[in-house]
């Protein structure tokens, strides 16, 4: 074992100088009980900066639209392209961020896409296409997609049931649009609403106890 005369200690490992005082050492080296691990740098900080910058740019893009009033100039197609790019960026960002939990990611996507469509519709003169077509179709498709996904990916009930439940509850919103007469064509909302109702009843019958178990666990005070 090597020895540092200055510190009067024996040193394990192949140190050429004393790890405590950097002084010279004498004697034969023995293997160190601690491995030499190369430096590691995590990308966490970079990814975090990218995420926050993206959110800021997207929020600024959406906000800037309000300043460009619909009567001002011929923004026309440019506005839709701008909104389309921002929305796509937002969707990709959320999908990547929530990739570890498909059910949770679906709730985020349905909410964000729904809100973006309504805002888009409002900016372009409120023709009602968002509430009539976009929101009900997104909701209904996500319910079907989720039912297929949890089966194919064999996701455990406890892991997805609350988010599936939330998605289904979001699917009930188009029934409200129907009731208040906000839609120009009742068919998509009616289909989405009835699909949600049927799924909700089925979930209650099949997984009622699991839903309660998960709620008790997650809302535990």
């Amino acid at each position, binding site marked *: *074992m090597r020895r*540092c005369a200055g*510190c*009067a*200690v*024996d*040193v*394990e*490992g*192949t*140190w*050429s100088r*004393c*790890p*405590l*005082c950097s002084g010279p050492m004498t004697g034969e*080296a023995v*293997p*160190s*009980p*601690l*491995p*030499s*691990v*190369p*430096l*590691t*740098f*995590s990308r*966490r900080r970079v990814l975090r900066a990218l995420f926050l910058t993206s959110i800021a740019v997207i929020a600024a893009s959406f906000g800037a639209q309000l300043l460009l009033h619909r009567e001002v100039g011929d923004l026309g197609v440019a506005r839709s392209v701008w909104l389309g790019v921002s929305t796509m960026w937002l969707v990709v960002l959320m999908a990547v961020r929530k990739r*570890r*939990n498909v059910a949770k990611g679906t709730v985020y996507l349905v909410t964000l896409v729904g809100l973006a469509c309504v805002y888009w519709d409002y900016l372009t003169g409120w023709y009602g296409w968002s509430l009539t077509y976009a929101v009900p179709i997104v909701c209904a498709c996500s319910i079907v997609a989720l*039912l*297929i996904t*949890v*089966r194919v990916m*064999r996701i*455990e*009930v*406890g892991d997805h*049931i609350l988010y599936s439940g939330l998605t289904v509850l979001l699917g009930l919103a188009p029934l409200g649009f129907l009731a208040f007469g906000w839609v120009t064509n009742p068919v998509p909302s009616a289909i989405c609403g009835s699909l949600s109702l049927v*799924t909700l009843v*089925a*979930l209650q019958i*099949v*997984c009622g*106890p*699991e839903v309660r*178990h998960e709620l008790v*666990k*997650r*809302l*535990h*005070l």
Partner: protein
Amino acid sequence: MMGHVLSFGEGPGAAGGFVPRRRDWVRLDNASNIFLAARSHADPKVFRISAELDHDVDPRLLQGALDATYDHYRLYHAVLRRGVFWYYLQDSDLRPTVTADDQYTCAPIYRVDRRNLLFRVMHHDRRIILEVFHALSDGIGALSFLSDLITAYVRLRYPGERPVEEPGRSGEPTEFSPVGAGAGGPRSLVPDSFSHYFRRRRPGDEPRPVAGGEPNRENRLTRRRVHRVSGTRTPDGRPRLVELTMPVRQVLDLARAEGVSLTMYLTGLLFESVRASSAGSGRARTLAASVPVNLRQFFPSASPRNFFATVRVEHTYGEGADDLGSVCRQLDRQFRRKVTVESLDRKVRRFIRFERMPALRVVPRPLKDVILGMINRGSNRGLTVAVSNLGRVSLPEPAATHVGRMAFHVSAVRPQISVVSHAGLLTVSFTSPFVETGHVRAFARRLTAHAVDVTVAAARVTEAELAEVEPAEAQR
């Protein structure tokens, strides 16, 4: 309180092929919540206990031993999940795998949204290594897991050697194998000794110790500015680790000569070393250490979960005798006063009352993390170092004869020493977020000046240190 894992068959007409399954879960204990709020990249709240055997570890046998031990510890199956108001531990079907020790000591274990086990078992040459996320268990709890793991490994490695007594358990209660049992079995997911002892008393329990007069908050009002160590952070946030190994007898003699416990002797020595290594004018003259105390000694429990409280001791230099003996004796007096059943009971009850405050309970979890994080930063301001002593480990035979020294490392937000002894060897591991080793040098030189035989093992941390190892490795 909670049901066991229930498995139902697939119901007729189950929508989407759900396989209803309810997993056992349990909320985190009082101490663990602060770990989650206080963890950071530099201090991921992980600790490591390793044991050095008399031969190179066989990974295949170690995996076999791990599989057998893992089956007995329900708690270690748990993953950490986030609720709306609190974190909770949930049972899982994951299986641990033994790996080579290819990460620096106490590397992060818990990552948000990744459901992984909260411990890892590794091997390096002759060492068996267990790393645990502190929200899962404390040092004593983890020691019981490691002890069973080593016992199982030795049984596989030396099938001819008969266990001296009941395998896996040392029958005689020592300071490390706590007597009595907490609520439930020692190895289930459920028992939380904090709530068992401090939340409410059930009829038949021993009466609450008499609270002796004023609440114990002497330092709260008169706290002085405490010296805090600063330095150059390590390049990738790993701890600067230096292990000092020495014969326990030699150091015990030094402590006894001063009439103090080993822990307080080492604390006093660390104060001296920090002071000697941080020269500079205008620094605060008060040094303070946080010392975790195993509550199982005072409130019998066999729970493998966290069950400890920290005690703060301090010394102000320049107000009376400052020689090592006087400092140690003064620290020892403080420590003895604070480590009594009454005083600890009062302290932990205060934390539990805070945790159970209705106003805090309804605060959503992310906000709670912020509040607890601020409280933690506040208490960090009053601390210079931390001293954690696991004490003398007694492994059951025949495992004990095959294990030499053991080591205990704790991830650190401030310079820290973690102490453990086995087979007559005391290992004092220094961890620090800074690359400087001045206090370790002062500590070691002080010991060697008293004719203690010190052996140093250090992990390479800086780029220059790691560059040096490459040619040496190539030669081998």
